[in-house]
C-alpha cells in the first residue's frame, strides 16, 4: 500500500496550525520591535528573572503541588473503595464520579463562587449554626479548593481503573502468606497501582499549574498565577514579547514535569498515560 501521500493534507495543516504558531511564539519571545523591523533580544527572558515573576512561578507550582497531593490523599481511598465494591453499586458510583466531569468546568468553578462569598450559602448555614464564618474567597485556599474540586475525578478514575484490574489471587496469595492488611497494601497493592497514581498526578498537576480561570474567579483580580500573567500580557498589556517568553517558560515547565513523570513511569514498569 503506497498511500503515505494521504497524510499530505494533514501535514500541511500541522505545519500551518501547529508548527508555525509555535515558531511565532518562539520568535516573539526573543525579538524586540524597533524602528526598522525586529532585533534579537534576551530582554523578555531577562525580565522574568525578577523575583516578583519568579515568585509567581513558584506560587503556581506550589499551589498545583498542594492540590495534587490533596487529590491523591482524598482520591486514593475512594478509588480503593470503588474497586472493592460489589458489581451493581460499582457501576452507579462510577457514573457518579464521571458525571461532574461532564459539566462545564466554568459552571463548577462558578458554583464555588456563590458558596464561598461572605454572604454566601456556606456562611449563611454557618451563622445559623452559630459557627464562626468562613472567609476564604479570594485567597490561596479558595484557589486550591477550586482545583481539587475540578480535578479530583481525574485522580480517582485512573487509580480505580488500575486497582480494579489487579488480580485478586495475588492479594489472596499475599494474605495467605501471612501479610496483614497494611503489609499487603504497602508491598503488593500500592506498587501495582503506581501507574494509575502517576497518570492521576499528571492529569491533576498539568491543568492545575496552567490554569488562569480558577485563579481569576476564585482568587480575584489580584491573584496571579503564571497563566494569569500570560493572559494579562496578551489581553491587556499588549506585550507579546514578554507574554511569549512566559509561554515558552510554561512549555518548558510542562516538558520538564512530563520528563520526570515518564522516568518514574519507566521505573515502575509501564502503564503509560495513554
Amino acid at each position, binding site marked *: 500500500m503506497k498511500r503515505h501521500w494521504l497524510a499530505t493534507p494533514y501535514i500541511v495543516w500541522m505545519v500551518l496550525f501547529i508548527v508555525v504558531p509555535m515558531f511565532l511564539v518562539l520568535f516573539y519571545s526573543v525579538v524586540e520591535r524597533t524602528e526598522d523591523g525586529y532585533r534579537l533580544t534576551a530582554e523578555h527572558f531577562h525580565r522574568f528573572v525578577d523575583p*516578583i515573576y519568579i515568585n*509567581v512561578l513558584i506560587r503556581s507550582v506550589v499551589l498545583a503541588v498542594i492540590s495534587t497531593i490533596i487529590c491523591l490523599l482524598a482520591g486514593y481511598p475512594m478509588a480503593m473503595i470503588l474497586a472493592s465494591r460489589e458489581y451493581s453499586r460499582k457501576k452507579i458510583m462510577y457514573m457518579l464520579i464521571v458525571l461532574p466531569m461532564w459539566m462545564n468546568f466554568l459552571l463548577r468553578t462558578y458554583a464555588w463562587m456563590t458558596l464561598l462569598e461572605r454572604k454566601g450559602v456556606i456562611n449563611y448555614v454557618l451563622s445559623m449554626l452559630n459557627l464562626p464564618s468562613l472567609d476564604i474567597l479570594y485567597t490561596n485556599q479558595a484557589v486550591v479548593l477550586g482545583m481539587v474540586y475540578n480535578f479530583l475525578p481525574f485522580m480517582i478514575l485512573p487509580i480505580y481503573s488500575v486497582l480494579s484490574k489487579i488480580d485478586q489471587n495475588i492479594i489472596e496469595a499475599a494474605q495467605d502468606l501471612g501479610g496483614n492488611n497494611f503489609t499487603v497494601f504497602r508491598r503488593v497493592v500500592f506498587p501495582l497501582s503506581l501507574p494509575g497514581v502517576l497518570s492521576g498526578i499528571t492529569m491533576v498537576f498539568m491543568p492545575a499549574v496552567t490554569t488562569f480561570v480558577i485563579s481569576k474567579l476564585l482568587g*480575584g483580580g*489580584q491573584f*496571579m498565577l503564571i497563566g494569569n500573567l500570560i493572559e494579562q500580557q496578551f*489581553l*491587556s*498589556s499588549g506585550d507579546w514579547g514578554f507574554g511569549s517568553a512566559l509561554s515558552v517558560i510554561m512549555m518548558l515547565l510542562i516538558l520538564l514535569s512530563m520528563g520526570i513523570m515518564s522516568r518514574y513511569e519507566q521505573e515502575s514498569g509501564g502503564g503509560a498515560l495513554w
Partner: protein
Amino acid sequence: MEQVKKTAAIFLVLAMIFSLTACGSNDGDSNQNTTAAITVYNWGDYIDPTVIDDFEKEYGINVTYETFATNEEMYVKLSSGGSNYDVIFPSDYMIARLIKEDMLHKIDMSKITNYKHIGEQFKNLGYDPNNEYSVPYMWGTVGILYNTTMVDDPVDSWDILWNPKYEKDIFMLDSQRDSIAVALKKLGYSLNTRDEAQLEEAKQELIKQRPLVLSYVGDEVKDKMIAGEAALAVVWSGDAIYCMWENEDLAYAIPKEGSNKWFDAMCIPKSSKNKEAAELFINFMTDPEIALRNAEYIGYSTPNTAAMEMLDEEIRNDEAAYPDLESLDNCEVFEDLSDIIGLYNRIWDEVKASQ
C-alpha cells in the same frame, strides 16, 4: 462496546440534525431585514440592551455587540487587528492616544444631527480639541463607594483605603491607570505625572496596600457592594449611583485630595468598514430619548442636556451623579501617557504579582 458506539452514533446524528436545523432557522432570522451590519465595542454593562434592539429594528442594521473591561484591553484588541470594530467607547486619554496614532476616522458631524443636545461644557475638551473624532457618551468621576453600616470613620480621603482597620474589606479597580491614579492622588501628586520617582512611590504605596485589598475587581464590584461583601470600593461614579439605587446603606464620596474626572465618548476606528452605519448608530445613541434610557438604566451621568432635563429631579440634583463641573477643580482629566506606557505596564504587573 459495539452497543456504546451505536448509541453514540445515534446521538451524534441527532445532535447534528438539531444543530443544522438550528443553523437554518437562525440564518433565516438574521437575513430577514438585514442590509448591513456593524460591530460595537463598548464597556461591559454600559448600555440599556433594548436600545440595541430598537436600533436594529429602526435601521435594519445588524449589531454585533462586544464588551471590554478597561481602556487598555480595548486598545490591545483594536491595535492587534484581529477584529473590525465600527463604534468604540474609549475614555478621554485613550481617545487622545488613538487620535495621535491615527487610528480614528473623523466623524462627519453633519450626520450627527443630535450633537446639538450635547452640553457646551463637554465640547472642545483637551482630548479632542476640535470635536472631530468623538461624541460624548457619559461622564463622571472616580471616588469611594462605602457601606455606611460597616464604615464609621469619615470617608473624605484616599487614606482610608490604607487603614488597616478595613483589612480585606476593600475593593480596588482592576484597571492600571485608575488604581495608580488613586495612589498618586493619595501622595498628593498629579495623576498625569511623568516623574519616574513619583510613580515608583505610587507603586510602593499600592504594594503596601495589597494585604488590605480583598480583590481587584471589574464590573462585579457592583454586585459585590450591593450584597455587602466589602466596606469600601474604588468605583466610577455611575456604578456608585447604580449601587446606591439598589442598596440604601451605600454612599459615595470624592476624596479631598482630588480625583479623576473622565469622559467616555463614541468614536469610529479606522478599521471600520461601514462608517455611515456607525454614524447612524452614534446619532441614534445621542438622541435625547435614547440617551435618557441609557442613563436611567446604567446610572451614569449623561452629557446630553436634553436627556438630563427629562431625568428624575432626584437624580438630576444628586451631587454624586451631577456635580458642578466647576466644583471639581481638584479633579484632573487623564492625559495620554502612551509614551511611558511600558513603565505603567511594568508597575501594574509588579503590583499585581507581588504578594
